[in-house]
């Protein structure tokens, strides 16, 4: 079962959809989340978020966030950032 991913910034939902892998930068270093990951609440450092969509017809998403946090539970991933922008060359949802 793929991950249900939501990337939200303070004023809007930036990206949402299904993904097979999410890589975020926490304060201690990069962390990858795949389906079946243990529930976690992590503080994010400013940096890039990479989301690999589950379906192959959507492009990999690179987003830049200015710090925030990540929560994972029951294959639902929520990335919350004050500011988040999807990088150039990636598909918009």
């Amino acid at each position, binding site marked *: 079962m793929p991950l249900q991913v*939501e990337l*939200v*910034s*303070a*004023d*809007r*939902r930036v990206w949402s959809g299904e993904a097979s892998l999410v890589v975020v930068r*926490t*304060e*201690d270093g990069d*962390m990858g989340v795949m389906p079946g990951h*243990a*529930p*976690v*609440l*992590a*503080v994010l450092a400013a940096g890039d978020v990479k989301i690999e969509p589950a379906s192959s017809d959507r492009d990999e998403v690179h987003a830049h966030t200015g*710090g*925030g*946090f990540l*929560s994972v*539970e*029951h294959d639902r991933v*929520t990335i*919350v950032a*004050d500011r988040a922008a999807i990088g150039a060359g990636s598909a918009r949802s």
Partner: protein
Amino acid sequence: MGAQLRVYRSKVKSVQSMKKITRAFELIATSRMVKAQQRTAASAPYARAITRAVSAVATYSNEDHPLTKEKSEVTRAAVLLVTSDRGLAGAYSSNVIKEGERLIELLRGEGKTVVPFITGRKGIAFYKFRHREVAGEWSGFSDAPGFEQAKDVADRLIEAFLAEEVDGGVDEIHIVYTRFVNMVTQVPEVVRLLPLEVVEGDTTPSPDEVLPLYEFEPSPAAVLDALLPKYVESRIFNALLASAASELAARQRAMKSATDNAEELIRRYSRLANNARQAEITQEISEIVGGANALADAGAGS
């Protein structure tokens, strides 16, 4: 044209142009209103995610945090008043200010010193006019608040809350804002922002959906440290957005009734003008008839 008639006609004209203005304001408020509601809806996922995370941390860790700690003796209380920048919104600003005055009186009655923070020019003007001291003021965004502004306000309030009393610190912070219920009802409301009570209720998941046992990365304390200020920011942002929607709804309603009033006035003055015109005609006729009669009488007499 008689003097009376001219007066009425010019009144009708001036009311007509006023009606055009209030009508335009009404339309502007309506279109901004839609945008404000969209913004409120767009900020909901963020608020939900934050609230859920905060309640998760609060449920599974016994971490104490300065922002949640109740002080045993509260001597200084801050009040954040969310008012509008512009008028022509009916009683919107004065309702919030009145609610704020009530709260301030209550807090003073409990022996607390009140430290006011204000957003919106109307509230600032109210305090300036009465020569009251304001601890912090922001303006220029009341009908379209951005997250940056909410963050500004939040940072300032958190700083005040964490500061020592001698440096102007406060022991608790209240927000007075206007809750948007629907297009016709907006209620001024007081909520205590700090120390934080993580609101259970609509945020706690139902009993069959137990919150998972989270791992905290890097540590529960660090997560709480990062999360709580964001929670405060999100609460303030929500209050600003709700107030913006309320302000626009109030303005729309005020301008609608102003337009209706103008229509009513135009109708009344047109009636009076018609009346005056008719009176003039009647007078002219009777003058002519009277003159003709007098001539006829004079001719018959000679």
